[in-house]
Structures are given as C-alpha cells and as structure tokens.
C-alpha cells in the first residue's frame, strides 16, 4: 500500500503538460478518507486540471501528457495500462454546470448502472429511490420521476447530477466548482448535502468560493501557477496560513 493510513489516495510528484505549457509542477498530495478536500487558487492555477487527472477526463484533450504516480487501490492512475472505464466506476464526477441528460429524471439516475449490467426493474427502482434520497432531492421529485430532467431548476439539476453519480456507488467523488452556476439557496443545499455525503464517501472539491472551502472542507490545498503552495487542515490554514501568499489569497487581497 502506497497510501498512508487513513488516506484514500496519494499523488506523488505529478507533472502535467498541455502541449508545451506545463500546467502542474511536482504536485504531491494525500487525500484523507471520508473527508472533504478543497482545492483552491486563482483561475488557471491547475486545480481543475489536477481534478481531471484523477478520473482521466484529460484523455480527451489533444496534446495532454501526465507524469508521476497517483496511488489508488494499488493502481497508478497515470499510465496507459489503466482500465479507464473501471476507474470511472470507482471515481465519480460532478461538473461545474449541471449537465443532466435530456431524458427523464429516472432515466438520468439509472443511465450508468443500466449500462453496467443492472437490468432488473426492481433493482433499478430501488437504486433510483436510494440515490435521489442520498442527494436530498427525493421529496421534490418522487411524484415526477418520469418527467424531463430539463424541467428542474438549476439547483435541482445539480442535485440530480449528484444522484446520478451516487447511483454508481462510487468510492470517491470529484466536484468541479459544483455551485458556481447556482444561486445562494441552491448552494446552501448542496453544501449541506456534501457534509452528509462525506460520512460515506471521500470528496475532492474545486472551489473559487473561500467561504465554501472554509465551511465544508476538512483539508485545503492552495494551488498557484501549477504548484501547491500550501496544504493543511482547513481550520488551521484559514486561521493562520504558513505562507503569506496563502493568507493574502484567502483574505481576498489578490486572485
């Protein structure tokens, strides 16, 4: 085991390039189990790039190249020999803009499980109810499961996307600014949801919202120009940051 005790994942000396441009430099980071890790930093600092390395979504970018080791369940997530589809069944993702399929709410939730071989109606029904309940949206949609997901509000759509991700029963969930496109009330409900989800899942969240990082995360990593400047317990970092740049960024004096 390359991950330390209580750790879900360990990135070691990860470098990443888009063509000639080096987007990440020597990233080393431990991801604690059943905790929320927040990645913060100004736009273009590499936090989303790092997130997308973890479920290989960067594979679709021309000229993208990664080096280093990411230990996860005895695998290295960097390298050609990895079964990417199997990895993504373990590591789910929620995107910045809610992106439900233009199908019914029910079809959205079972989209993944159905394509991975779960066919029985009773099992699928159960999965839908369980996932929507976990995503705290069941009460709002239980009578309209076969209505189009596009008729939901932005905040509901994002919770549906979380339910769609939970239906795969992942081990780890990546969230790329999941509340950036939402109003304060929807943001609040997603943040409440995150706090209940961490009892069962390990979560990594990219956010531009300092208060959000402070409210929900247990560990925070501050990225700047492709490097991690500081990483530590969120409370500790927000109360007394070790680096001056971190302190200035957190307090909103640059970035």
């Amino acid at each position, binding site marked *: 085991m390359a991950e330390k005790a209580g750790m879900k994942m360990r990135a070691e000396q990860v470098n990443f390039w888009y063509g000639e441009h080096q987007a990440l430099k020597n990233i080393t980071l431990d991801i604690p189990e059943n905790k929320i890790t927040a990645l913060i930093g100004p736009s273009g600092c590499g936090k989303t790039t790092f997130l997308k390395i973890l479920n290989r979504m960067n594979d679709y970018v021309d000229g993208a190249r990664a080096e280093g080791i990411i230990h996860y369940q005895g695998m290295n997530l960097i390298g050609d020999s990895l079964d990417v589809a199997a990895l993504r069944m373990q590591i789910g993702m929620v995107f910045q803009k809610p*992106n439900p*399929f233009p199908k019914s709410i029910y079809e959205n939730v079972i*989209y993944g499980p159905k394509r991975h071989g779960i066919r029985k109606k009773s099992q699928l029904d159960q999965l839908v109810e369980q996932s929507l309940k976990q995503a705290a949206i069941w009460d709002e949609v239980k009578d309209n499961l076969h209505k189009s997901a596009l008729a939901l509000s932005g905040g509901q759509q994002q919770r549906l996307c979380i339910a769609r*991700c939970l239906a795969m029963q992942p081990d780890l969930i990546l969230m790329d600014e999941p509340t950036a496109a939402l109003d304060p009330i929807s943001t609040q409900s997603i943040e409440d949801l995150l706090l209940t989800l961490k009892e069962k899942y390990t979560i990594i969240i990219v956010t531009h919202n300092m208060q959000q990082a402070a409210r929900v995360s247990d560990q925070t990593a501050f990225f700047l120009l492709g490097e991690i400047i500081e990483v530590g317990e969120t409370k500790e970092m927000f109360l007394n940051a070790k680096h001056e740049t971190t302190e200035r960024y957190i307090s909103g004096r640059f970035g």
Partner: protein
Amino acid sequence: MMSQPPLSPSVNQDVATPRKLFLQGHPGLNGRRKAKNNIYHGVLLAGTLFAVVMLGLLLFQVIRSSIGWLDWQFLTSLPSRFPKKAGILSAMAGSLWTIGLTALIALPIGIATALYLEEYSDARKWFNRIIQLNISNLAGVPSIVYGMLGLAVFVRLAGFGRSILSGALTLALLILPVIIVTAQEALKSVPLSLKEASYALGVSKWQTITGVVLPYSMPGILTGAILAISRAMGEAAPLIIVGAAGYIAFLPTSPLDAFTVLPIQIFNWTSRPQEEFQHVASAGIIVLIALLLTTNTIAILLRNKYQNRMD
C-alpha cells in the same frame, strides 16, 4: 470628500453624436434612412414573392391541366398507349420500391460514416482529411455522372441488370454525401458536457453514442435524410442511364425486377405527340407532388416524435 460627478456627463457642444443628430431631427437620420430601409424591405419582399408566385403559377397550370384526368382509374391503372386508359400504378409502385430500398441502403451507411468521421477518426490525419474533402466534393457531382457509375458498376459489373436494386444503389450513392454531411453537423451539435457526463460514469464510447449522442442528434440526422430522399424521389436522369424503362405494364415483386419511376413516366408522357397525354402528365405531376408531401410529412412526424422524447 470627493466632489460628485455631474449626473449627465458634460457634452462638448462641437462634437456631433448620433443622439444629438437624432434629437435635432436630422433629415439624414429620419428621412433618408427610413427611405433606404423601406427600399430594402421592398426588394427582399419582391425576391420572396417571385419564388412564391412562380410556384403558384406552376401549380395552377398543372392542376388546371389535370382536371378530369386525375381520378381513381388513373391511380389504379397500368400505363397504356390510349390516354383515356393510361394509369400511373406501376410508376408509383416503382417509385416506392426504389425510394424505400434507397433509404434502407443510404441511411445506415450514411450515419455510420458520419459517426466514424465525427467520433472515431482523427481529423488531423491526412487520410481522414481526404475522406472529408471528397465527401463534400461528391455532393456537387451532377446526378447523371452517378447514373453512368451505376450503369458500369451495378448493372454490368455486379450483374444486377436494369433492376430496382441497381436504381436504388445508384440513388443511394447520389444522396449519401448529403446524408453524411448533415448527419455530421447534427453530431457536432451534441454538447460536449453531455458526452463528458456519460464518460464520467465509466460508460464506453459506443454506449455513449447509443445512449446520448444518437438520441440527441437524431432529429437533425432525420432532417437531412428527409431532404436527401426527397431529392432522390424527383431524380430521373441517373435512372434513365441505369435503364429504368418508360413503359412497365406490371407491378414489381422483387428488387431484381425491371421498373420505372414517377419522374420518368411523366417525362415519357410529356414527350408523346398526342395532346391528351399532356393532361395525363399533369395528373402524374400531381401524384408525384402528393407523394413527396406525404413522405415529408411522415418524416417530420417521426422527427418530432424523437424531439419530444428528448425534451
């Protein structure tokens, strides 16, 4: 304390601004410009009306000429050398056979090609760029050239003879470029965020295509197919080369039968010396237009059904 800026920014009296000219009721703005606007409006309207009026005249002429000739007997009879007994049944059956077979051949191949080019091929490789370029060029090749290809390859080389199959294969080649290009456009319109959502669930590329990409792009693909098939239904030139006959006194029962289609039958009638056959031809044109409208309606209904399912 900083002094408050004035509510409206002070305006330099010498500088002409559009707003000042407007307030002064400048003729250049209120007179000349309006006149220009009206002229362009009129020109564009005239252009539109030209097409509508011509279509109206044509339809009027054809309908007037067909009165008394378009009846049940005409629809259910085989062709004859006596105008009163002549009917369109075999041409109608031939058109339906040919178009049906054309769609069956062209749609799967066209959609498969579009999927390959959009989802699988690497557009940076010269091989794929050449395919793309050639498909766009093929859309502009005159239909008679396809007829010659069909004659050489399907009628002679493959030995299908002067049959429905040869005709349908030729028409399929003719409309494939249009189907491919419109299907590609439809596939390009699928948002990347939906594909990403599917991939992020560990779903394979093919499952993403069948689960998200095709359902989303199907209305667009069908629209292209409607246009292409309508074009094929009105084609006469390539089928004449492939060897569709002008006189077929039986109904086709297999794809290897000899055949004729509506445009050829109409062409055959218009070239006869007897005046009555001009009326028979007009009746045939009405049938062709009705058939075109029916296929288009069916296709549009089909498309709307898909669209509703997605919303």
